[in-house]
């Protein structure tokens, strides 16, 4: 029943990875903190799933848990299905075959984490040989091909990171992630530190790679406009949960969840009508989740049920799935009623 395939999940039979009921709990000095609470989604072949949300909503934790890169203080539960296996149950040996070969990661701020004393090309070679048994010369040849595919002239492989621009560094990091032909690349805020012109180039590159090589992307970002530009489907996270998921056009143009609506409406636009926008009151919660629906303290449509019962993802009118009581009780959507 929970496997009801809708537009929200994309066309069936094409799944690269399926995340089911993923939960991540951190042990901190102040107690247990559930950063990710029952998150489920599917990514299909050749598709970009945008994971949108603000800081502390759990999107980076979700991304890292797919690669099993969380520290010992994190307890991960749930099921991550890839190629018939559960990533969360994989042995060290299986993980070695999985990481970088099936799924790779572009971590947040990675363009600034390149080793400053090693030429960029050598770093890519190192990455290849760490996950594969290629010889040095084979790895070098692969590196040259990779650099070309991200529009960096292969002769620049001998340059150091400080001789690259911000955009080039990010492209080099993308090349590294593509090294072993993964079917899924997880990119965590890949354009955040870049100027808008460079960002555009990078987004075009990702589209290109998706089209030419059929790679899927999990694109994590707080920037809704960027997600709007690049993603095919969008999942919006808030306080550790997915509050809305569906096709981009359904989620961003016709949002069903009040948070998505509010978020979409709170971004000052460059084009289109100039109008006074309304901000979302309060602050995004970090660690201490409100009862019932986690968004209810900031929601203009909240009613009694919202404080008591956490809503589940349901199919909405627009075709997306939204975790909101208004989906099943649309008559309650009266802002005058408090």
């Amino acid at each position, binding site marked *: 029943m929970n496997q009801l395939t809708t537009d929200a999940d994309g066309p069936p039979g094409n799944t690269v990875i399926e995340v089911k009921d993923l939960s991540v709990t951190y042990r901190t000095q102040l107690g247990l903190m559930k950063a990710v609470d029952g998150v489920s989604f599917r990514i299909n072949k050749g598709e970009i799933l945008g994971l949108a949300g*603000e*800081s502390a909503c759990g999107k980076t934790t979700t991304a890292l848990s797919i690669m099993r890169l969380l520290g010992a203080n994190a307890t991960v539960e749930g099921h991550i299905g890839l190629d018939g296996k559960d990533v969360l149950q994989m042995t060290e040996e299986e993980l070695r075959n999985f990481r970088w070969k099936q799924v790779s990661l572009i971590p947040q701020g990675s363009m600034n984490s390149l080793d400053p004393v090693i030429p960029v090309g050598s770093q890519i070679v190192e990455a290849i040989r760490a996950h594969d048994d290629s010889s040095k010369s084979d790895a070098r040849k692969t590196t040259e091909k990779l650099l070309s595919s991200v529009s960096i002239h292969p002769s620049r492989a001998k340059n150091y990171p400080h*001789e690259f*621009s911000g*955009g080039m560094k990010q492209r080099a990091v993308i090349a590294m992630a593509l090294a072993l032909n993964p079917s899924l690349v997880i990119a965590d805020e890949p354009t955040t530190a870049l*100027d*808008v*012109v460079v*960002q*555009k180039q990078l*987004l075009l590159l990702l589209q290109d790679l998706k089209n030419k090589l059929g790679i899927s992307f999990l694109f994590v970002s*707080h*920037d*809704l*406009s*960027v997600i*709007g*530009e*690049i993603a095919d489907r969008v999942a919006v996270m808030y306080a550790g949960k997915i509050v809305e998921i569906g096709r981009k056009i359904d989620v*961003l143009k016709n949002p069903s969840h009040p948070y998505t609506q*509010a*978020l979409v409406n*709170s*971004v*000052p*636009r*460059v*084009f*289109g009508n*100039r*109008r*006074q*926008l*309304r*901000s*979302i*009151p309060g*602050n*995004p919660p970090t660690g201490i989740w409100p009862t019932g629906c986690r968004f209810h303290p900031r929601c203009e449509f909240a009613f009694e049920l919202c404080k008591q019962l956490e809503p589940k993802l349901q199919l909405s009118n627009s075709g997306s799935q939204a975790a909101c009581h208004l989906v099943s009780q649309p008559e309650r959507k009266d802002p005058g009623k408090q």
Partner: protein
Amino acid sequence: MKLPEAQVQNAISEPSPILEIRKLTVHFQRRERLIGRKTTIRAVDNVTLTLAEGETLSLVGESGSGKSTLARTVMKLNQPTDGTILFRGQDIFEYQRGEDLKAFRKRVQMIFQDPYESLNPQSTVFNTVIEPRIIHGLAPDKDERSNIASRMLSMVGLDPNSKLDRYPHELSGGERQRVAIARALSLEPELLVADEPVSMLDVSIRLGILNLLQKLKQDLKLTYLVITHDLGVARYVGTRIAVMYFGQIVEIAETDELINHPMHHYTSLLLSSIPGTENPQPLVVGSDVDFSYSAANPPSGCRFRTRCPKAQDKCASTEPKLTELARGHFVACHYPLNP
């Protein structure tokens, strides 16, 4: 919310501007290597800009454009290498009397980009907000101080009772920025310079701050100079937008005019790069940034020519001057786009 025509009108033809930046040049000396030659970073080069009273000028540019250096120089945190800045007709770098400098500090204030770093971690909110007045001798009485601080906090939407004796690390980013605004306004300034006021805040918090700034501007009759790399923010708050590239102003126009009819190729490139599905601009393909040029060694003539799809010989030989090509619309380009 469309701006009243009258206000826009005044913004362009106001006779005595509140702030005049004249041929401002700010160069920094950097030593490349330990025993190398000193290089000159030409952060701001020959910038002329005026700000009319009551307007909000959004200064847009990417990193390295010199916009922050310009803002800091306006605040007298940097010394100019050449040119000058006039506030209400007086050269701010030539104040003879101490009182004049103090008056300047009262009337021109700044909000900084990083809400996490612009507040003294050792000071409570109360001390942070009241300090400027103490410095200027405007709040000798203990009761008065308490009242003023409470009033300032309420004005920026914070509850004085719960916030006055907090330390910065106990506040969220949005709250800290509000405290910074309260502090800046405690001296009742006339001009406020905001350097990337929301770029380090969460998306859902940004709008609250921007709306607050709009409201305060109206209530307190302020003039704003807003520095930002985000065109959406620039448009939301700005009556006019000025675009900076490589230390120079390349285009200035009233907000909607600039967005709908950009004339400089860089502006067009910027606009076409805005992500999102609503962008009506056709994609401008600029050439890649050429690394043989840098802030120490910019291209000759027009600095954008190395990336411009329409560059020609004249662009390399002659530097284009900012010229008014339509009412209130200034462009520095030999071959501008047709409006």
